[in-house]
């Protein structure tokens, strides 16, 4: 109850500040009605057409089927609230379904100490890739391991505090308090079933043109009353506690020459994520996996990209994590999956991109080839993406 109340308060706080004029009608004359203070608004559309040999409809997952897809439409609003806060809200569709809230959060602009606070419903700072919106991803879908563990992202009502450490290189420490709503990991409804997040981000300038980034993340939380979508087996006794523990490391090596950085660059990026459950004192084998991707810009508008992702889910975690849609496999042996992706992207401007991608996916004894053509378009004023 307390946890739901906290979540409700955070969202209401953000929503109220977005609608500050309604709250402060008597003070509204201080700024009046002016278009100059409207938020920056952008709309992003992701449309794709795919052909896959997955004709038996073994898998119904959207990233394995054939046909034309409206992958996502997202509407983004961002503005400074006042001297102290900025806000951002993103609403997106899942496929062709109605527009839903993806993110709405506040970030502090000025604090007396070098700490930034971010609160609301938001993509949490676990690794690097989890912070990307779908249109910002280099491939048409997120890496397998993120989908397996977070299904497909860690996006919680939460409060994060990040502190810039007083060292000679960039070292940022983030601590987060998450409401614990993630279906795969938490789904708890107990009062104090929060998730606790820790992230350490380091970046070094190896040369003027090369940066090395290394981060580590830790997330822990209780799984509540065990009555959610992915309920544990009946063998669990009343009162037995289940906790989720996730840790990960992320690495990024980026080369971008100073003089012709707009024309060529190369990024090698990877993450490893490991999760275990502690069930009544027993720690399970880990569900773990990784991805590594290489993004090579070789001309002003052209990119070549490759990615490999792998995961392994042990048998004892099968009851807790959702199975691939309609895929039947021997749960007693666990599940291993991997995917190779290769893509060529034509990016005429920062507001449009066309991507041709090939995927080879294998889960247990099933495999599928898939070719996708994706169009990625943004209109309006969209905030710059982080490094």
């Amino acid at each position, binding site marked *: 109850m307390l946890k739901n109340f906290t979540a409700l308060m955070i969202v209401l706080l953000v929503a109220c500040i977005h609608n500050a004029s309604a709250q402060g009608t008597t003070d509204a004359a201080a700024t009046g009605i002016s278009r100059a203070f409207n938020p920056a608004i952008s709309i992003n559309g992701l449309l794709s057409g795919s052909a896959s040999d997955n004709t038996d409809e073994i898998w119904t997952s959207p990233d394995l089927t054939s046909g034309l897809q409206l992958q996502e439409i997202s509407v983004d609003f961002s503005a400074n609230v006042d001297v102290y806060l900025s806000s951002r809200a993103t609403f997106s569709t899942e496929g062709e379904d109605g527009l839903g809230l993806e993110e709405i959060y506040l970030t502090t602009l000025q604090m*007396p100490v070098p700490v*930034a606070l971010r609160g609301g419903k938001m993509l949490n700072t676990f690794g690097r890739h989890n912070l990307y919106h779908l249109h910002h991803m280099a491939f048409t879908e997120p890496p397998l391991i993120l989908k397996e563990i977070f299904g497909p992202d860690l996006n919680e009502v939460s409060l994060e505090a990040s502190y*810039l450490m007083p060292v000679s290189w*960039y070292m940022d420490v983030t601590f987060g308090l998450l409401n614990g709503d993630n279906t795969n990991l938490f789904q708890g409804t107990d009062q104090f079933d929060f998730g606790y997040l820790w992230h350490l981000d380091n970046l*070094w300038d190896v040369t003027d043109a090369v*940066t090395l980034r290394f981060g580590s993340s830790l997330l822990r939380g209780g799984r509540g009353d065990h009555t959610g979508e992915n309920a544990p087996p009946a063998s669990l006794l009343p009162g037995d506690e289940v906790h989720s523990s996730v840790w990960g490391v992320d690495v990024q090596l980026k080369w971008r020459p100073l*003089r*012709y950085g707009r024309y060529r660059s190369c990024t090698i990026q990877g993450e490893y994520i490991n999760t275990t459950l502690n069930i009544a004192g027993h720690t399970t084998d880990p569900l773990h996996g990784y991805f590594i991707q290489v993004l090579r810009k070789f001309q002003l508008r052209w990119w070549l990209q490759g990615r490999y992702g792998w995961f392994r889910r042990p048998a004892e975690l099968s009851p807790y994590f959702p199975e691939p849609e309609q895929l039947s496999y021997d749960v007693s042996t666990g599940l291993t999956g991997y995917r190779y992706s290769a893509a060529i992207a034509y990016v005429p401007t920062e*507001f449009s991109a066309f991507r041709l991608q090939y995927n080879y996916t294998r889960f247990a004894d099933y495999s599928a080839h898939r070719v996708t053509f994706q169009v990625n378009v943004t209109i309006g004023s969209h905030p*710059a993406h982080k490094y």
Partner: protein
Amino acid sequence: MYAKAGKLILLCMLLFTGVHSIQAQRLRIVTTLPSLASITEHVGGGHVVVNSITRGSQDAHYIEAKPSYMMQLHRADLLIYSGLELEIGWLPLLIQGARNQKVAVGSIGHLNASAALSEENVVQKPRGEVDRSMGDVHPLGNPHYLLNPYHGLKVADLIAEKLIQLDPSHEQRYQQNLEDFRRTLQSRISDWERRASGLAGLEVVCYHPHWTYTLDWLGIINTGYIELRPGIPPSPKHKMAMTQLMQQRDIRIVIISSWKEPSKAEEVAKASDATLVILPGEVRALGESEDYITWIDYVVSELVKTASGVVTPGRHRHRRQQRGTL
């Protein structure tokens, strides 16, 4: 032995403390451009430590918001940026990530250098509505205003005012430095204008609207751009049209900034029998442009040298007469 080592350590500590306290007394300034850093160094002298986020060889339109830049801003007392939305794609992220109240928007340590200019000083401000079909247009006008040295004088005045506001104890020194800088730059402006006097009325083609302020200052006419729209590379049709235009008007000079890949400009220049001039887009972008004054000097010298090599004397004088500019 131990006593000697102890003295040595003590001496090192004292030296370190001394150096640290000298550093601490100096204003730590971060600029977005090397040209702004150079002007600030001239005005601030020994009382400031200045770092530029971008290097001269980088195109400031397309900088990524590297966290290491946030660290520079995190430690700064003053941020000086070009403004006119040149840095719109990356500076807001850096300011937010820096978590430094001193340089936050609206703070005393946040200086938009374009505030030194009047409305009339800013060129190529789009009239009416703008949209992305026009390319990478700057709705507030062309942000490369420091390529006119008269604007460098104005920006130096603004920076001196800000330094005095932040560090009034060295007001006299800043005033003196400003006067020295103004005197040197004004004397060089007279020299540049004298050397480039023959260029007035000369027609050139630029790859991108980067050099407008320099060309306007020297009276050089920019007849067209090789880019289809600002930031958008030319189509074959547009390159052909530009080649024809250059041949018709006997334009013999194509100008491109050092950070643009020159292949497309080279094609047009070759087809038009023109000379391609690669000019340093910023301080330290190319050799012999070590500070603001030598940068402008390099640009003017290159233009004069190229024009003298490819243009028949008196030809653009004839054009100026035709246009009534003489």
